[in-house]
């Protein structure tokens, strides 16, 4: 992989924040399995390890007031959008201090303040929501943009095509980012999609489609920022396929028998984080000590997040009945 910074020429501080955000996500995600085994968390647990370059590249290309909407593998995405790890961890613990007050869980995080507009668990079900958010931006004559992330499996759902069509039809400012990690649970892309190069699926809607290396954070950043600029200028939606890999199973309970050791090893060598840190060092943005220091700081931050989650209270039982309707 070749990391290049000649498109938007990001400054040292931005590059270091990109690195820090990727490390934060990795540290967060890798802390989870042990906590899950201890029974601190329930339900599904879809970890983002391996895909950090996509979420972080995307988030850094966005403005704070831009909307992000995602599927259910979203711990990394909400962290990339700026939500502190404490409330994200607390949500996994089901605590009332969690981002969704303990009522959403791993798959349904939300942060209205930071415009992370939800993690959704019905594959592709959130794509039309992104179109609607984009429509609301046009309607208000505002200049925000929506970035909608989903997996490779989503591109085989009917509603993916409805959303792509309507986005192009109404020229909404939405950037669709397909995180192609090669598998919809245990079914590989080639066994589920008649078209393996998923970026080609947007051509039916005359929406620009492109494919980027999802392990290369700067390549993701460049592509998404260009697409966002385009959307903000009123030129409508775009579609980016980021080819990536999840280092862990589909969810915590996945033994992963459908992926070969050789394949895993090959992708592990393309791990976006050490590749980026080596590049930072090679380019003279940071020394080994600073790189290691960031890892330790983020590890400490996650430890604090776990402590916060641990000490936070469960929701009161009365919360069972709150927020079903507006007046209760």
């Amino acid at each position, binding site marked *: 992989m070749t990391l290049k910074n000649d498109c938007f020429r990001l400054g040292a501080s931005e590059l270091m924040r990109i690195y820090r955000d990727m490390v934060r996500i990795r540290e967060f995600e890798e802390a989870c399995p042990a906590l899950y085994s201890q029974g601190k968390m329930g339900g599904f647990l879809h970890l983002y390890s391996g895909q950090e370059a996509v979420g972080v590249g995307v988030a850094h290309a966005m403005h704070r007031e831009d909307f992000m909407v995602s599927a259910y593998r979203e711990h990394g995405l909400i962290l990339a959008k700026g939500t502190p790890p404490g409330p994200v961890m607390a949500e996994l613990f089901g605590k009332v201090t969690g981002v969704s007050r303990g009522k959403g869980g791993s798959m349904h995080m939300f942060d209205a303040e930071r415009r992370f*507009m939800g993690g959704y668990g019905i594959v592709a079900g959130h794509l039309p929501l992104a179109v609607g958010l984009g429509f609301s931006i046009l309607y208000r004559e505002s200049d925000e943009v929506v970035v909608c992330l989903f997996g490779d499996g989503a591109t085989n759902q009917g509603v993916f095509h*409805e959303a792509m069509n309507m986005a192009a039809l109404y020229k909404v400012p939405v950037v669709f980012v397909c995180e192609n990690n090669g598998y919809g649970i245990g079914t590989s892309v080639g066994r589920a999609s008649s078209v393996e190069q998923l970026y080609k699926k947007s051509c039916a809607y005359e929406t620009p489609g492109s494919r980027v290396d999802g392990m290369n954070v700067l390549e993701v950043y460049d592509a998404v920022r260009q697409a966002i600029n385009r959307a903000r200028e009123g030129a409508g939606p775009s579609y980016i396929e980021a080819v990536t890999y999840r280092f862990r199973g589909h969810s915590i309970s996945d033994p992963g028998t459908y992926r070969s050791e050789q394949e895993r090893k090959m992708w592990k060598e393309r791990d976006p984080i050490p590749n980026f840190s080596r590049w930072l060092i090679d380019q003279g943005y940071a020394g080994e000590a600073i790189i290691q220091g960031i890892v330790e700081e983020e590890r400490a931050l996650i430890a604090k997040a776990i402590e916060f989650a641990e000490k936070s209270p469960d929701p009161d039982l009365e919360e069972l009945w709150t927020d*079903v309707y507006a007046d209760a």
Partner: protein
Amino acid sequence: MAVMTCREAINQAIVEEMERDSSVFILGEDVGLYEGSFKVTRGLLARFGETRVVDTPIAEAGIIGMACGAAMGGLRPIAEMMTVNFAIVAMDQIMNSVAVARYMFGGQVSVPMVIRAPGGGGNQLGAQHSHSLEALFLHCPGIRVIMPSVPADAKGLLKSAIRSEDPVLFLEHEGLYAVKGEVPEGEHLVPLGVAHIKRRGSDLTLISLSKMVYVCLEAAERLAEEGIEAEVIDLRGLNPLDMTLVMESVARTGRALTVEESWLTGGWGGEICARIVEDGFDLLKKPVLRLGGADVPMPYNRMLEQAAIPGVQDVIARARELF
């Protein structure tokens, strides 16, 4: 007071709310240039323009999902489904996005949208265009279900629905669009979840809504000739469900019969009867009874279709069983 049809009353409610609040807009199949397949949206495009009267592709899940996202983005969409049967295509969006968003995200987001959908039988439209599916939506918490019977309520309830912070499914009966009635001008709001006594009676409570209210009223007149005074309640919706008024009535009459056009099995009548029995068993002089649509896909043949929908004679016969 002006006399107008349900169709005109609904149109008036939409116009008034769009005039009042610039965040209200309407989207759906053929709502704009074609002015609605039932002409409910006549004149809207000319008045409000394409940004606020949005013709959509035939893509019900896309329409409801887009409306949901727009509502999350601060707008107040009115999404029209051409018939309620088509809303099933969007059932995932309705039940997995619209209805649950507020709760699932810990109260951080509102989805103030209205889904308007006509339904009901009587026009020989067969098994994919004329069902009454309110029970499906009643089953799902998080979404209000409203069903007007008269033009004044159609206007007043729709205006309240548009202003509601909750998503509202607003089910119109195709057989009522041409029904005329007096409608108050301007700011006429009917609160959601308040039932209405359409006819006073002391011997029996007939509980219904939408088109079946008319069937019940006619049956009540005939029953009066036999000396049975039936009270007719128009629920005007199922969520919120006004059980207070139902129980007050049953306390006076001691007899209850639910009358619905929807399939009897798993219909809303069973829910209401269960609640009456749970909360008011001692009030009852006779067991509660239900009347509903035949448990069959809606047939095309006129006679068969009529046989599938409760009629005046059916109500009378069932009511007699209570004496």
